[in-house]
């Protein structure tokens, strides 16, 4: 669970191309953490007793030391057409329609810019660790251009991500991972499970059909999926068995 963080890069706020009815994302969390998991269109995110909010141009930092009374600590001009924000460890990633801006929040009240990566498109990303990130891009959307694919980036130098592998898919959305498995929502084509023992070469192990999958949060052996019409809960078992526990669709 600790390794987990995924986010939705959603282009807009209501059911749009890129976030077709939105989705989810799990924030990194630990048993002792008092903040839960979440994400999606992410106009805001919480980390280290602070809340970070973006509008189309700026980043606003609020202190949550008094959690019932957020206090504005400052604002920073970031760029144009900002669409999403998420955190991984002590960094903020702010996605715009043309670039990814990276800020350090080692001092949480005062984010400082580390750099930016241009020409990186992502509808949904999941950062696996300090050197690998998986992102999905979806054709016909601002976040995808013309491609439908799962892409593997080397992010050792975070402002210079290197594309290492492109795995074509039909309609990829949100994704999540646990251990050496990567779960990628494939819209109306179901959910794909990849073996990522070799992180740069995801190997398709299984496809789950029957529902339209938009996003997943994985907590230990529980997978919560945002599906068309609601939510489905699954238990992840040995040998890639995925057992439906319940659906909440009305």
């Amino acid at each position: 669970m600790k390794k987990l963080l995924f986010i939705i890069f959603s282009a807009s706020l209501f059911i749009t191309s890129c976030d077709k009815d939105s989705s989810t994302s799990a924030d990194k969390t630990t048993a002792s953490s008092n903040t839960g998991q979440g994400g999606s269109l992410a106009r805001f995110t919480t980390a280290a007793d602070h809340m970070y909010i973006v509008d189309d141009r700026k980043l606003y930092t609020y202190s949550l030391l008094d959690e019932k009374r957020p206090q504005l600590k400052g604002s920073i001009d970031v760029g144009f057409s900002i669409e999403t924000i998420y955190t991984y460890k002590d960094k903020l990633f702010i996605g715009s329609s043309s670039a990814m801006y990276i800020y350090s929040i080692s001092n949480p009240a005062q984010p400082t810019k580390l750099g930016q990566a241009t020409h990186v498109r992502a509808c949904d990303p999941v950062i696996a660790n300090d050197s690998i990130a998986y992102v999905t891009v979806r054709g016909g959307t601002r976040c995808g251009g013309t491609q439908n694919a799962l892409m593997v980036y080397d992010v050792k130098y975070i402002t210079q991500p290197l594309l290492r592998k492109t795995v074509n898919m039909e309609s990829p959305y949100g994704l999540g991972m646990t251990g050496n498995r990567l779960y990628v929502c494939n819209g109306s084509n179901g959910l794909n499970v990849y073996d990522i023992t070799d992180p740069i070469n995801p190997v398709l192990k299984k496809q789950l059909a029957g529902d339209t999958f938009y996003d997943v949060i994985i907590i230990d052996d529980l997978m919560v999926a945002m599906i068309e019409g609601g939510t489905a809960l699954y238990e992840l078992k040995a040998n890639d068995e995925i057992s439906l526990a319940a659906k909440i669709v009305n």
Partner: protein
Amino acid sequence: MKRTSLSAWLLPMLAISLAACYPRERVEPQPEPIPAEIDGWAPVYSKDADLTVIKSMPPQNIVKGGKIYIKGDTLYQVESGKGIHVILIKQPANPQKVAFISVTGAQELAVKNATLYTNNLNDLVVLDITRVDSVKLADRISNVFKMVDATRPPGTGYYECVDKSKGTVVGWEQKLLKYPKCRN
């Protein structure tokens, strides 16, 4: 005399040079015919008198489920533009909806201890969820977001023009439009 003749020259020249600009500005690309049917955007209206009222309600059906968020044994799912479903998933095989928090315009959320943060249209609202069946507004910070533009949709393309007599625009949805007159 000289002065007069100068201005007599200048004024018409000025007029002509200004007028010269007009045709240029008016040259527009040939308007495309309005399509009979096309995918585009339509406003979501609310007629509620007070869109800022936030309250707990009994569990509701999930109609347009949005973002999900998990905190402990509780799953929160946004009902796009309407509020937040609160669902206990301690027993995954038997999830229990326990409440619905009505928040107009809601699109996303975060939870910290017993505090829930979400957006009420363009305001950041801070809710005390110690009791989900009677949440309390702890704080509101106005116009933090630009989530909802009441005049135009969040994407490009055709959209159904806003008709204020139908209420306040609280969001936009994608829809098959017939002869849409507005375009973003």
